[in-house]
């Protein structure tokens, strides 16, 4: 694709609106497009999504491709890869960015291989090299112990997925103008080899982990499912939510939907309280965006103390009950 031009982002939705990741993609996409002096386009895929096209323009796009079909109601690999392939072959973007979301994780790699181009996933930062005009993708590797900067030098589109909450959206601008294009993807049911059967919700009630201002996390050291009730009590007092590192979820102490980490939920609370968790890099990748971190752990060498602001070295079974009592008292007073 020698004449590849422009930046293209792939939007996502949440409860009939643009998902936060979409405005984040538009924010970074706009910046990259400005830096290479090209247009920013967005693609919206779904059963009925054209109503949101104007909103995408207000958040920074010059052009919006709308691909609608009842076959695109739910995300299915084959149909989404198929329509994205067709769009990319026709539009020939220079840069293509998706979210490192449930959809993006599945769609982006398969699409990159179909298009024969390079992809860097889970990026925290994207920029343009002032000399080569290539996109530089920064992503955490080795469980967040190191950062890697990657370029896709030979093929287009240069592809990346971005980690949610890592990029700033633009201010919404109602005066912004753009073009909306209905794109005929020529979708054919025979393309779809993986059949969608049903979706099952398992989320716990109460404050959602990803949105919570306070997150109380328990680790392997909690020792079993019952003591999580204490963490629940503390979270409830503070109006927050309870999460866990991978071992408690793998052991079934808490449902997998409450796992915080690289492959679980990504949390960015104002206050994070880690209880009896070592601070494995896999977990920290999911909570390093917390504004303030507190840890209670009996091992003074635990890695969690290297990333938190306040720590208590002690057995949580002895520390947590008086802590909860005092918090209760302070909040009541």
């Amino acid at each position, binding site marked *: 694709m020698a004449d590849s031009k422009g930046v293209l982002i792939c939007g996502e939705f949440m409860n009939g609106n643009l998902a936060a990741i979409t405005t984040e993609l538009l924010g970074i996409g706009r910046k990259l497009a400005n830096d290479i002096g090209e247009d920013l386009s967005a693609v919206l895929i779904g059963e009925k999504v054209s109503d949101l096209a104007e909103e995408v323009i207000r958040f920074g796009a010059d052009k919006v491709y709308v691909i609608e079909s009842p076959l695109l109601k739910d995300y299915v690999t084959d149909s989404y890869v198929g329509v994205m392939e067709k769009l990319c072959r026709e539009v020939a973007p220079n840069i293509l960015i998706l979210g490192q979301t449930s959809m993006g994780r599945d769609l982006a790699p398969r699409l990159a291989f179909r298009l*024969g181009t390079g992809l860097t996933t889970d990026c925290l930062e994207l920029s343009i090299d002032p000399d080569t005009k290539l996109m530089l993708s920064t992503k955490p590797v080795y469980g967040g112990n190191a950062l890697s900067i990657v370029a896709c030098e030979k093929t287009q589109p240069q592809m990346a997925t971005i980690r949610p909450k890592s990029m700033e959206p633009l201010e919404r601008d109602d005066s912004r103008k753009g073009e909306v294009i209905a794109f005929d993807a020529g979708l054919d049911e025979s393309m779809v080899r993986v059949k969608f059967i049903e979706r099952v919700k398992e989320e716990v009630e109460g404050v959602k982990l990803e949105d919570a201002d306070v997150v109380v996390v328990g680790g392997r050291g909690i020792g079993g499912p019952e003591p999580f009730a204490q963490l629940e009590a503390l979270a409830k007092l503070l109006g927050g939510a309870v999460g866990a590192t991978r071992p408690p979820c*793998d052991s079934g102490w808490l449902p997998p939907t409450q796992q915080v980490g690289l492959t679980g939920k990504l949390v960015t609370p104002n206050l994070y309280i880690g209880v009896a968790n070592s601070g494995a890099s896999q977990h920290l990748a999911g909570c390093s965006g917390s504004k303030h971190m507190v840890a209670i752990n009996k091992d003074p060498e635990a890695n969690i103390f290297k990333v938190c602001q306040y720590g208590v070295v002690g057995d949580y079974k002895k520390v947590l009950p008086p802590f909860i009592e005092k918090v209760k008292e302070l909040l009541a007073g």
Partner: protein
Amino acid sequence: MNLIVCVKEIPDPETPASAFAIDPEAKRAIPAKDTPPVISPFDEQAVEAALRLKDAHEGKVTALSLGAPSAEKVLKHTLSMGADEAFLLNDSLFDDSDSASAAYALAQAIKKVGEFDLIFCGRQAGDFDSGQVGSGIAEILGIPSVTVAKKIDVSDGNARIERVLPDGYEVVEVSLPALITVSNELGEPRYATLKGIMAAAKKTVPVWNAEEIGAEPSKIGAAGARTKRLKLFIPVRESKCEIIEGENDEETAIKLALKLRAVKLI
């Protein structure tokens, strides 16, 4: 049923940050002295997924790894868990593979293994966390892929798969052959039994080079890579943890609560 699992040897992801070091020239981690490399955890769960199907339906499990000669250990581990055979892809021509060239080499090796019903990979390798090789192999072989699986049942030439979603899971169906990437929600992988370890010790792990898998030199290693790592570095972290101390646990706990109140966090 013929089941193939792709596994990767990686530096132990539990290596504490203090023992973690990199070679900025080679743009790779320097293996920590006291922590030997391990099988990537999600790949171990992929082996478990294949073994569960073997337990239920009979069949053969073949493990493949693209890596250094030391990756033989990781393959031996899959044999001791219950895999039937294992092959190591090793050749200096594979050096500096990215996801594209690794997926191509593994796809070539899969063709050499021959018939398969399902291919399993971990959802992502625990070193670069890229999560591309599984989907890439499927694309190269022209078969469907289902990612982040937590439960797999096979009947009448179809696989019924539960895929992990942020708020639960979804159920999909696909006809075989297909490729599945496995997530940790599958559950703990089995331990190797003593019998398994003894049996694995007796098996050899044949090594295949680029020519033996019929790989085109332009598609493997650095030559076949579509991405280039320009830089690898350890980010600077400020670590200023204030340890709250008291005469006893209760006093410490109260001091912590008072501190958090003083800085307006509660």
